């Protein structure tokens, strides 16, 4: 799995690519931890995540809690059907705001 980070004034954009499972959730957790120290407004582009397991979801939720406690948020960009369904099953879909593109997600941050 690839994890790429780009930061700008409004938010940090993390693009994930591949399977968020196995050892990658803990790597992502570290990355998100670092990122949260600088900027608590995060966008995660999930459009290229083919698979996510419950640990992966757990990392996202854990990071979201931290972000909110720092008045930030984690917003997701176009999760695939598979990921979206798993998020629904685990009720995680209720706590994340989901956007169809990075631009829209960025715009949502700059609006408030």
């Amino acid at each position, binding site marked *: 799995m690839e994890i790429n980070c780009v930061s700008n004034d409004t938010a940090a954009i993390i693009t994930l690519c591949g399977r968020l499972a196995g050892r990658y959730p803990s790597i992502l957790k570290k990355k998100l931890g670092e990122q949260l120290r600088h900027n608590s407004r995060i966008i995660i582009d999930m459009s290229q995540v083919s*698979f996510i*397991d*419950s640990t992966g979801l757990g990392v996202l939720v854990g990071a979201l809690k931290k972000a909110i406690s720092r008045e930030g948020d984690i917003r997701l960009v176009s999760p695939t*059907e*598979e990921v979206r*369904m*798993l998020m*629904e*099953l*685990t*009720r995680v879909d209720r706590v994340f705001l989901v956007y169809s593109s990075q631009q829209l997600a960025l715009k949502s941050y700059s609006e408030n």
Partner: protein
Amino acid sequence: MNSLIIIREKHYSWLRGLGSADHPAMVTICNKPILEYMVDFIVLVGGKKIRLVFEEPDGSVEAYFGNGERWGVEIEYGNAQADDTIARVVEKNSSFGEQAPLIVIDGLLFIHYDKNARYEINPEGPGTGFLYNSESGSISYSTADAAERSTLVEFTPNLQISTPRKIVNLFRITMQVLREEQHRYVIPGYGADKGVILGRNVEIGKEVKIHGPVVVGSNVRLLGSAVIGPNVVIGNNVIVDDGAEVRESLVMADTYIGRRLYISAKMVAGSKVVSVSNNASIEVSDEFLLSPLKRSLPINIVRYLFNVCGAFLLALLQLIPFCIFFTLGWLKGDLRFNKSRFLLSSDGQTKIFRTPSGFRTGAIDRIIRSLSLDRFALLKEVFAGKLQLVGNRLIPDTAEGREFVKDFSGYSPGIFNYTEADRLDPGAAESEIAERFYSANRGFLTESKSLMKALMNNLLYNT
């Protein structure tokens, strides 16, 4: 009237892989195989013999339907080939077509019959023809001396017939049956609450909420504070873990639904989830969330309950006779009991029990034995979980006994034993075989039978 039901791959293959490994015709609607609805319908219209004709035969269907006794019809099995016409199938199964009127169901149809209605076919004179015909299947008939093809005739009263061809269809039909037509079919289980049908051996946690209509299969555990319904069918052998919520969904047999999962408008089979709204499906490989279940359940608890219930019933029955005859026997000096130490399990636990001596001393003693009252004092051991109600013969704690029990890992003694149930000589080889065989093949049915046999034997052969 006789009937042929033709099961062709092209009508059924899309159901493969949904739920268990059984034949797709065994996929269920409200926990009843689709094929069984067809059989029910044939029985309802007066069928006496049914032959299930397969292009790809399958043991699971035969294992389920057997010879049809349970449905009150004769069920047989036959073969056909993929491109056989209906006429050819009828020809191949000639013992079915000639003497009696024949109904042929070809394809996968869900017939929305009503078990309380009467259906009649009204052909004008002899002939053959279709009662229903569509791309996914047909129902045709021929009268005994069919020669001429007559026009399309219809059942009276009229029937709705669904032709499932996609998972979504199956879901809709199930919902229709669940919400509007429950009363029309015999659905396995018993009605617990309004619109709620529960199967055998269903464990429901204290805080579980069930909102009907809901149909739950057998061997199901709904744990913790799970929320089930409305509009849910749960198959056999399913665990819904604490805090999960299932609504507007079908959970197929042998599935585990993990803690706090939220299942809405889905079909779940093992680790496969299909969204009913857009037919998208995913395979969840995380076994903590969803996973197929092997068919095993906490049988020990159930066994213990079975034992305790049996022992309690027996104690109720025996209490008064026990008081009377033991007092009499004690006054008369007829009672001879030995105290000795017995082995409780193959790992060498022991306990002292009082058992009747080997000698029959008098009339009262005979009565006590014939009514099995000599076991009364042992019943408390069942409640304590030390003895089974029906189990192996108690083996005395001797060097020989310990040796014997050591290589008999299934040894689990009971107040009543298999040897006496089958009236075998305790020393003989048959007794050893029976003891080992039954303990390896415990089942509630066999045990209830053994108990009855033991009680009857005591009654018949001690007087």
